[in-house]
């Protein structure tokens, strides 16, 4: 069998070691706020110059998978998304840690990441060429409709619809800063050249969630309630697993689908999955208070994106997200041109990557579970010292990404904004979603209208576009539909 011959090189000791090392390194990089999976892969590409393609690429994939998973650690423990992919994990992960269930939250995140990762890897290995064509269906109108659908999450995520809408619109407004996506004109930069590409996303996120939380904690320091935090064991109970099962499955599916569509990424997948888990739950009010399916939904989705994003890369030569775009550079350095021909010219590499994805996911599970007790002990550090550490990490992380001092002002500014929002009951999550999806909606709406010469009917004529537009309407109307159904049932 060819496949077995192609898989054999994976099980050499040095290749396994490279994958394990990459996964562990990625895990740590992901857990440190400001160091993203993208950076980890990019910085280690030169190391792979001298390796065989299968070894080098799988090490990079290990970093990718480990990095996306690692982001959940600081999200759960410190309310600091380690990578943008884990921003949504903050919503339920952090409250769980506050309730003394840090170990369980991390354990569930690890299990969810593994399930999502394995599901997508399975899809990658079996259906890559067939599914890759989905990636090509998405033109500007389709992306716009998808972004619009994603934006409806804002309405259901924030209890107070008006305040949620204000937060969301503020996010869209903030995302307008920087170069206009179509004409290139600089908007709202006030002559500061550092803002030429807008507010950097990761520093904004760190400020919005982490620094703002430090401010809130500081207010509480004066009130004397210094309880030592407890951390639970790492394995979720049977009851937890039964409750989370639906969220896991849905998250894996959504993550895989979003991963295949180029240019969307794990952040979007996590938010959509969270919202779907909440919508379909029998107890939606528990979400946001430290509810395990919330963690299961986001982490299964963002790790499913990893393997799924490899589908268009390997089958079409089209990277599914930013990290896979960097991986493409790694492939090309090995003298391999990613694209439809790769399956014919280098089946050994393709099969090797399929296998490596499984192995890296396995290592991620082992390392993750082994490190949960170590990580959760971070919470034993006294509150005031932990706060100082978080502040230091906020600054280092924000600066490390682009080495742009303007990013530090961004981080602090968003920290103050986030603190104010939290204090007056505005949803930070809504702002975060708008920062991700606002630019996607704007640029694709305008690009699409440019292509159709401002013909709105032609713009909205595609079946995929219409599908998502209908979903958008349904999603907005859902609370009313649910209410009417409940009333009928009551009668």
């Amino acid at each position, binding site marked *: 069998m060819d496949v077995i011959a192609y898989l054999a090189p994976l099980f050499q000791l040095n290749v396994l070691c490279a994958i394990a090392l990459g996964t562990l390194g990625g895990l740590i990089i992901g857990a440190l706020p400001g160091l993203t999976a993208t950076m980890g892969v990019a910085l280690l590409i030169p190391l792979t110059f001298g390796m065989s393609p299968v070894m080098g690429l799988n090490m990079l994939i290990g970093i990718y998978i480990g990095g996306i998973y690692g982001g959940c650690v600081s999200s759960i423990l410190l309310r600091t998304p380690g990578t943008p992919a884990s921003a949504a994990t903050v919503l339920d992960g952090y409250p769980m840690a506050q309730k003394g269930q840090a170990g369980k939250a991390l354990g569930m995140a690890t299990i969810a990441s593994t399930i999502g990762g394995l599901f997508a890897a399975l899809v990658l290995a079996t259906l890559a060429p067939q599914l890759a064509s989905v990636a090509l269906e998405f033109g*500007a109108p389709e992306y716009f409709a998808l972004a619009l659908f994603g934006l409806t999450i804002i309405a259901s995520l924030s209890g107070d619809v008006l305040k949620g809408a204000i937060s969301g619109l503020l996010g869209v407004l903030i995302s307008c800063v920087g170069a206009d996506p179509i004409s290139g004109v600089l908007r709202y930069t006030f002559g500061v*050249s550092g803002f030429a590409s807008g507010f950097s996303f990761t520093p904004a996120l760190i400020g919005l969630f982490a620094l703002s939380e430090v401010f809130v904690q500081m207010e509480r320091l004066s009130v004397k309630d210094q309880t030592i935090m407890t951390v639970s064991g790492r394995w979720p109970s049977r009851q937890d697993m039964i409750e989370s099962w639906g969220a896991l499955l849905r998250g894996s599916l959504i993550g895989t689908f979003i991963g295949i569509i180029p240019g969307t990424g794990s952040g979007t997948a996590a938010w959509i999955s969270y919202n779907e888990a909440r919508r379909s739950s029998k107890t939606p009010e528990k979400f946001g208070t430290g509810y395990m399916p919330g963690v299961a939904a986001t982490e299964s989705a963002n790790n499913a994106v990893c393997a799924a994003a490899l589908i268009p890369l390997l089958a079409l030569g089209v990277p599914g997200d930013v990290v896979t775009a960097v991986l493409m*550079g790694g492939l090309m350095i090995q003298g391999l041109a990613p*694209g439809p021909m790769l399956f014919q010219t280098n089946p050994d590499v393709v099969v090797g990557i399929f296998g490596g994805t499984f192995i890296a996911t396995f290592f991620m599970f082992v390392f993750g579970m082994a490190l949960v007790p170590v990580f959760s002990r971070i919470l034993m550090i006294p509150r005031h010292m932990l706060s100082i550490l978080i502040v230091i990490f906020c600054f280092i992380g924000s600066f490390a990404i682009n080495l742009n001092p303007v990013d530090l002002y961004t981080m602090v500014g968003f920290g103050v904004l986030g603190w104010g929002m939290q204090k007056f009951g505005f949803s930070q999550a809504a702002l975060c979603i708008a920062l991700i999806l606002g630019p996607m909606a704007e*640029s694709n709406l305008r*690009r699409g209208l*440019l292509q159709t010469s401002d013909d709105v009917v032609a713009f909205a004529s595609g079946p995929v576009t219409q599908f998502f537009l209908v979903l958008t309407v349904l999603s907005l109307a859902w609370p009313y539909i649910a209410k009417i159904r409940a009333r009928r049932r009551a009668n």
Partner: protein
Amino acid sequence: MTKRTLLATALVAVSMTGPAFAGFPDRPIQIVIPYSAGGSTDLSMRLLAESFKRNVPGATMVVRNQPGGGGSIGTSATIHARPDGYTLGAGAQGPLALMPHLGGTDYQIQDVDYVGMMSRSLQLLVACKGAPFSTYDAFMTYAKKSEPQIGNSGAGGANHISAEAFAKAAGIKVKSVPFGGSSKARTACIGGHIDAMVASPAEALAQSQAGNMTPLFVMEDKRIDLFPDTPTAVEKGVNFTWSSWKGLIAPKGIPDKDMKILRDGFAKAVADKKFQEQMKEMGELTQYEDAVMLKARVQKDSEAAESVIRDLGMYGMNK
């Protein structure tokens, strides 16, 4: 052995050990890359840094990514760095030759000093999947009656300007569709959402073998090896060539003797065989030009771009 040679030997020995006498460079040279890690500029520069280390004894080069603003932020950081020879930058066509015309940069091309050019990126115009044309002539016929949609990696970027420059030279009208980066434009092209785009030979080769792209013409004055059957615009009677390049730039005012060490070292690093092989695998065409030639090239590109940018009404729009 005379006293004089002894003295000279002693002096040399002292100058080699004492830090005060150590020659340039005695610490790592930093290269600012104005793009994110992992892109083609970043990877080429990392290869160059390794080659520099191999070829200039005692020298080390480290890269630092400072992305943003289409490359203008990192380029500005290089130009305004202390001119001690320890901060250099990756020079690219967009931020140097094009962006100053749009306004919004805090530098002009006369503020830059050059170390040399290491590679040139050839470009082709390709027809996308499902486009209503697949040859140069069919493209021109189509363009005479309706505007073909040509994707680019961003408004005011290198391949936006080159597509418009061709349209101007050929006397046709095109509709430029900007995307956020070249990989998104390529995705749209393979999916048939645009008619044509500017592509590199390496990406065009893989995709044309799969039938997703069809090369229309090469933006060189002679046909190229990878595409022997694809015509140039010049042979079709349109006076148009365009290529992008990568080089090493520096802030003005580096002491002459240090600059000479850098330029000589750079020339050696580019001539390095392993470096050239690695660049070739990435689809880059290694080509060395010294500082004077590169300066002239940037000047020429800048002038060509200025007239196109003025025609598009984008001149000074970000002032």
